[in-house]
């Protein structure tokens, strides 16, 4: 097991958002978490990444580190990242003044130091990036611009996937990565994600729409409503949701 969430309750500003959520993820799996607005989808990603505004009030949030399940709430966001948890932000943050290259480089080296593989110097890292940039169809000039600053919506999302490719996480949460993308950008992002699928890596797609799942085939689909997973199934569940909406599950 890579991620084990049991009866998870979490609040933001003392307002409960997650109310007894269960989710188990094995390495190699792709999960899609769908649900209407306000169901707690984004909260789940943020709780897993360790956003300081979100407080876990009850339940289990465990992640496998060195073959042992470890309580994630004991780790700071940077420690979670160093252990291989990655969140692609729904709204990637602009950091003007810090170039994308410096940012990626600092991030890569921070991981390398922790995980015990060699850090890269500027030139080596630039070479390493070349291939990754191609994967997400990003032009080189993005490296010298401020992190996400002045990027279009699609460019920001691609930049998230680039980071994922560079950092090779074991568990990636993609928080509404498809929102605000036109069809071409969506394809690029989906291709990027697909190329990162592997036996060791688990991916959780958090999304409102089924259309992303036309391009990334999930193994499991879960419906999140009112802070809980209310239904789980295979890819066919997503299609049914597309046709019939959420009401048939949520309404008692």
């Amino acid at each position, binding site marked *: 097991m890579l991620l084990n969430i049991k009866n998870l309750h979490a609040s933001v500003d003392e307002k409960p958002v997650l109310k007894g959520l269960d989710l188990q993820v094995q390495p190699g799996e792709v999960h899609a978490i769908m649900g209407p607005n306000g169901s707690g989808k984004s909260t789940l990603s943020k709780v897993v*990444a*360790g*956003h*300081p*505004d979100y407080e876990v009030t009850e339940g289990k949030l465990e992640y496998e580190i060195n073959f042992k399940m470890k309580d994630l709430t004991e780790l*700071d*966001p*940077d420690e*979670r*990242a*160093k252990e291989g948890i*990655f*969140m692609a*932000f729904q709204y*990637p*943050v602009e*950091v*003007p*003044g*810090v*170039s994308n290259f*410096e*940012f990626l480089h*600092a*991030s890569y080296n*921070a*991981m390398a130091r*922790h995980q015990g593989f060699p850090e890269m110097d500027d030139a080596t890292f630039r070479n390493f990036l070349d291939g990754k940039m191609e994967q997400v169809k990003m032009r080189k000039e993005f490296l010298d611009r*401020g992190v996400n600053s002045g990027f279009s919506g699609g460019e920001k999302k691609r930049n998230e996937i680039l*980071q994922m490719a560079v*950092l090779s996480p074991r568990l990636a949460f993609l928080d509404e990565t498809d929102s605000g993308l036109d069809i071409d950008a969506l394809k690029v992002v989906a291709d990027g994600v697909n190329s990162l699928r592997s036996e060791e890596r688990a991916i959780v797609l958090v999304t409102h729409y089924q259309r992303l799942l036309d391009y990334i085939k999930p193994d499991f689909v879960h419906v999140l409503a009112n802070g809980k997973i209310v239904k789980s199934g295979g890819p066919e569940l997503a299609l049914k949701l597309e046709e019939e909406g959420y009401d048939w599950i949520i309404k008692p």
Partner: protein
Amino acid sequence: MSEKAQSQTERGEYKYGFHTDIEAISFGKGLNEEIIRKISARKNEPQWLLDYRLKAFAHWQTLEEPTWADLSYEPIHYQDISYYSEPKSQKEGPKSLDELDPELLKTFERLGIPLGEQKRISGVAVDAVFDSVSVGTTHTEELKKYGVIFCSISEAVHEHGELVKRYLGSVVPYKDNFFAALNAAVFSDGSFVYVPKGVHCPIDLSTYFRINAQDTGQFERTLVVADEGSFVNYLEGCTAPQRDENQLHAAIVELIALQDAEIKYSTVQNWYTGDKEGKGGIYNFVTKRGLCKGKRSKISWTQVESGSAITWKYPSCILQGDYSQGAFYSVALTHDFMQADTGTKMIHVGKNTKSTIISKGISSGQSKNNYRGLVKILPGAEGARNYSQCDSMLVGEQCAANTYPYLEVKNKSAVIEHEATTSRISADQLFYLQSRGMDMEESISLLVNGFCKEVFKELPLEFSVEAVKLIEMKLENSVG
């Protein structure tokens, strides 16, 4: 973990806040003609200098303290300050550095400025100013070989009287402003530099200012003259003990660059800022100005202003020689209740003169950080160019940053560019960087370095490392 906690406590404190217990000779509080005569007599000054001081004092008495800066502070009681304090052991006149009072040696060592022959920093000559007097200058012999004069200004008045007389007050006349007049009347010491024709000064020169005595103002004066075709790199550092009362520091720095000469002047200012509630701290009212007198001369001011309760400081350049160049690179950090009103003036007089202004203000806590700058192109300054960039970064919700750029253009051929941005270090940015594996310290360091890199790269290497650490340390306290 305990190591981490340890370093955090250290970060929380102003580590230069200690006070040296040393017997001092101080003049009583108050300012009048008699005090000025006493200062001059104590230094055994020539008549011309006493006359200069008295004229300045007479003029000062006709002036009002300026109020145009966007600063608010308790009124300064000029009669409640002592205008002179020197360590008693200095009385018998200049001694060699190795005979210096051990307490003084220890003080400067604690500040990271070892003066003793064995330990002194190679590659940098230091003039150490303690309260009102220069207590010693290192590497003077070595510099002499190149004809470079580097000594206290008191010594220069005696040894190089003609040079001092020619240039003192030539860039900042005593009539310039209230604090300049005050300084001209009571200045007690400071550094003097003369780099002869064609000499590239082989080592960096540096002055370290330390205020120690209580209720004493520090009024020093620095004069740097770079003769034709010469080059000098000059560094300045400052600290003061932690005290509850405010202390006044009103200095003057004058730079003169003759034809084809270049002066690079860098400051890391870390005077005591006052405590978390805004009590105490240094009032820093400083007039710094450089004159690019000759053709193709260059002067650059690089400053990292991270201390003082109040900063009022506008290092400026008068670009008189044709093709001369002036630059101002500044990082000003304010936190807690600090207030800074700082910037520059670039006065284009000669043809094809060029100036660059890069100002980075970082404010946190309840502090106030203003950039105030003037670019003035005179009618004869054909082909003048200026580029200004003023960026502000806010940390938290209660601080303020303002930019006051003034432009006076009297020549149509001038090309002037101005850019300004304001940004905020947000919790979101920090979380974003942390979620990519960088801890809080690395995240702040990346943000600050990114914001200030254009200025930091202008500092000499060892200064730049110190400046980065200083800013990171102060910001971690504000954000964390």
